């Protein structure tokens, strides 16, 4: 009954979020920063594949690499050498492009202080039940990130922007990933609750790029995001991988720099945070065959109900309906048994049949 379900359901909405948003920003322009655009597009691709729709993704690309005059393969942005994976695809929707990617616009998107004429696709319409993934990449230093080769955002500004978001109840939980040189300096100043941060390198270290492509002539991806993409390709919407797995992505042997993370502001244990809590947009649906009486006055629940009492997603997906009737076995089992019998009779000869019958 639903009371026993209640006990397992405490695990279900522990995350407490109902919708997912993603803000993916590439801050550098120029052809030789091709890899930053490829980084962001890889994360965009993963996030879209795991279910976040374009209406909930704010994608900011500071330069157009696919249609750059120097691109020998126009209309593509590759993330693997030998051009195995075109992350530009057919359905990329860029919300802020070119010179619109500025520190001011980024902060306005985060805090929601946009002029009334801004279209919906350029707004972060999150609420207090939104889990937001923020991914930044570009050139950075100790305490700053460079935008467009002309301005910088400092870690203090970013921390204050997140505090504004918290006070305006614009997020439930925030995952902040940054892939720049000395990226760990950007999350040092955060002070708002429910923020988890990952960075590709510590202060004083450079984040390195992964591999150049000789035909295109530039480096295609940064190491950290390359291994992050490999990790995310294995995640599917029902995956139970948690944040501890994400922290292990790209150890020093692969990344040369030391990735870092920060979880002290986060209320939940990272072990219990699913990757899909931030990267996917998993709708929690319960299929129930019995009526649930929610308003029985006689029985008071012994503990206050958690947000929505439903079963964890994994159990729902893999749950089979109870079988009341006997059904014949699947074709595979039938075929397997036929094969076994054939082999048996081939080996031992048909005359042994009389021993059976």
């Amino acid at each position: 009954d639903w009371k026993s379900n209640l006990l397992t359901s405490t695990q279900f909405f522990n995350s407490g979020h109902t919708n997912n948003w993603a803000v993916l920003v590439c801050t550098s322009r120029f052809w030789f920063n091709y890899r930053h655009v490829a980084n962001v597009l890889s994360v965009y691709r993963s996030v879209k594949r795991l279910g976040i729709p374009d209406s909930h993704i704010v994608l900011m690309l500071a330069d157009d690499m696919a249609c750059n005059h120097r691109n020998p393969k126009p209309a593509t942005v590759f993330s693997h050498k030998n051009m195995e994976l075109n992350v530009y695809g057919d359905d990329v929707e860029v919300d802020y492009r070119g010179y619109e990617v500025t520190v001011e616009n980024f902060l306005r998107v985060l805090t929601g202080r946009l002029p009334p004429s801004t279209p919906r696709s350029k707004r972060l319409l999150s609420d207090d039940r939104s889990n937001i993934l923020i991914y930044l990449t570009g050139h950075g230093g100790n305490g700053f990130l460079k935008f467009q080769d002309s301005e910088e955002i400092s870690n203090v500004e970013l921390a204050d922007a997140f505090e504004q978001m918290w006070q305006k109840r614009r997020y439930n939980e925030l995952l902040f990933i940054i892939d720049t040189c000395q990226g760990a300096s950007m999350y040092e100043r955060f002070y708002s609750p429910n923020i988890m941060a990952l960075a590709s390198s510590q202060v004083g270290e450079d984040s390195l790029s992964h591999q150049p492509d000789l035909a295109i002539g530039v480096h295609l991806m940064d190491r950290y995001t390359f291994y992050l993409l490999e990790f995310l390709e294995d995640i599917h919407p029902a995956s139970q991988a948690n944040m501890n797995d994400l922290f292990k992505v790209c150890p020093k042997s692969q990344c040369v720099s030391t990735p870092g993370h920060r979880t002290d502001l986060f209320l939940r244990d990272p072990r219990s945070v699913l990757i899909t809590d931030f990267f996917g947009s998993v709708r929690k649906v319960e299929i129930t065959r019995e009526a649930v009486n929610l308003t029985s006055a006689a029985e008071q629940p012994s503990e206050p109900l958690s947000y929505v009492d439903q079963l964890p997603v994994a159990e729902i997906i893999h749950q089979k309906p109870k079988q009341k009737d006997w059904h014949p076995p699947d074709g595979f089992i039938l075929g397997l048994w036929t094969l076994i019998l054939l082999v048996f009779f081939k080996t031992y000869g048909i005359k042994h049949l009389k021993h059976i019958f």
Partner: protein
Amino acid sequence: MGLLSDPNRRKALTSLLTRLNTPIWGMPVEWLVKTMQARGLEVFTQSFTRTLPFPDENKERYMVRGTNIYGILRAPRAPRTEALVLSAPCSPDNSNNQAVGLLLGLAQYFRSQIYWAKDIIFLVNEHDLIGMQAWLEGYHHTNITGMDYTPLQGRAGSIQAALSLELSSDVITSLDLVLEGLNGQLPNLDLANLFHAFCQKIGVLCTIQGKLQRGDWDTAEGYTHAVQTMMLMVLKQASGRPWGDHGLFLRYHIEAASVRGINSFRQYKTDATTIGRLLEGMFRKLNNLLERLHQSYFFYLMPSLTHFVSIGYYMPAFGLLATILLLRALDLWVQLGTPAQVTEDGAGEVEPPSSPGVLSVLTPVVISHLTGVALYTLPVLSQETAVEHFPVSETEAVVLTAIAIYTAGLALPHNTHRFISGEGTEQGWRVLKLVALLYLAVLLGCTALINFSLGFILAITLVPAAACVTPHMPKALTALAMVLLSPGCTLLYCVFIFQELQEAPVTLPEGWMLFLSVISQGILDHSLYGSLVYPLLALLIYPCWLLLWNILFWK
């Protein structure tokens, strides 16, 4: 991947190279136009004429008439705002017969690529520097040097970088990079680094100043080798002439370098295909640039291709030399300011003027500068009269007139001291020396800022002379020392040192002939390309030195 991996293109290139191996008298204009058009370039020509002020005996030309041919490869997708230039000078003799073939082969290869974001101009200029000057003036709509040229029909946008090719053989053993340009200007160091990086990547030997790099920096031989290479660069920069066709681009803030193929007696030879790949790589890198090269130094000296001395290191050395002059000037100012404590006469002494009038030294200053003007204008103007009266050619007439006027200036103090007021006073020569020192300091400072090598070489000879000279020294010895430290003799030493460093030492008579030809080249450079070395030396440095000479013979 890369140039000429297609056997058809390789065949085309070898056929071009063998064709151009035969001597071409004059430029095959129609053939070049047709060939470039066949490769899909937009081809235009420009004709120019120029009469030199006097015949150039080194290159044997006087009235020059020629045609430049250039083809523009338009970038397939980009707007026509920026351009790169690949040029090869085409001369009547055999000195650069392979470069044009390589240029055409590269044009054909580049035409089939889609990643060009800038237009590429393939330029074949006639009469090397003169043709290049005509083309650049036509391209930028200026007329600095009085050249006569037809306007350019086709244009490609603002030029970001340029490379000039000089190849005389179809196989080479090393590539030499030439950086020094007009008036000692240098391209951005990034261009030299780019060339070196690509040479190493492809495995071609590359040199600078024609000298191979040595690996041992700690040993004395390695150090002297590096110093020799740097001294060569200093001398080349001080001469103020463009040492390759690229030298004229620098005036328009276009980073340019010349690449010269050298075929020596080493065993390992590199063929034109590899040079083509190197140039293709360099052009692709330049294509990826989004701004003009500006991140690295513009003022540097290179002891080797992997090491450089930046302006922050070498300028203090010059600063110290200039400080000597300023300190001496300060000393003189103090001496002039305090009235003479010891006077032989008592009350009969007229009180010395508190600041001795600068007008008293105006006469020597004016006369020295008039001599300088004479040195600047007379040699070229008087060549006809000299040829009439003496059995010399025009070039010799010009040079010998210059030397004559220079030497005549030595006799000035004897003739002009009658006109100087304040003669015989201690104050007079002190004021003159003060003026001369400050003048020299300003001159050398300005020169060092523009062309450091020239400023430094002049400083090391003139500063000791200026600081020490007084009328009270032994006249004969000091006069000899002054003459030996004068700008003319400095030039002579530089010629000898240059030949020594090039490992082609010359005997005294050969050196003297070389010196004469250097003077004539200096005058020609000034009138043809606007080099500032000759006017600087004639109009400003020489009068300054004459002032010091006047001080020495003060009565």
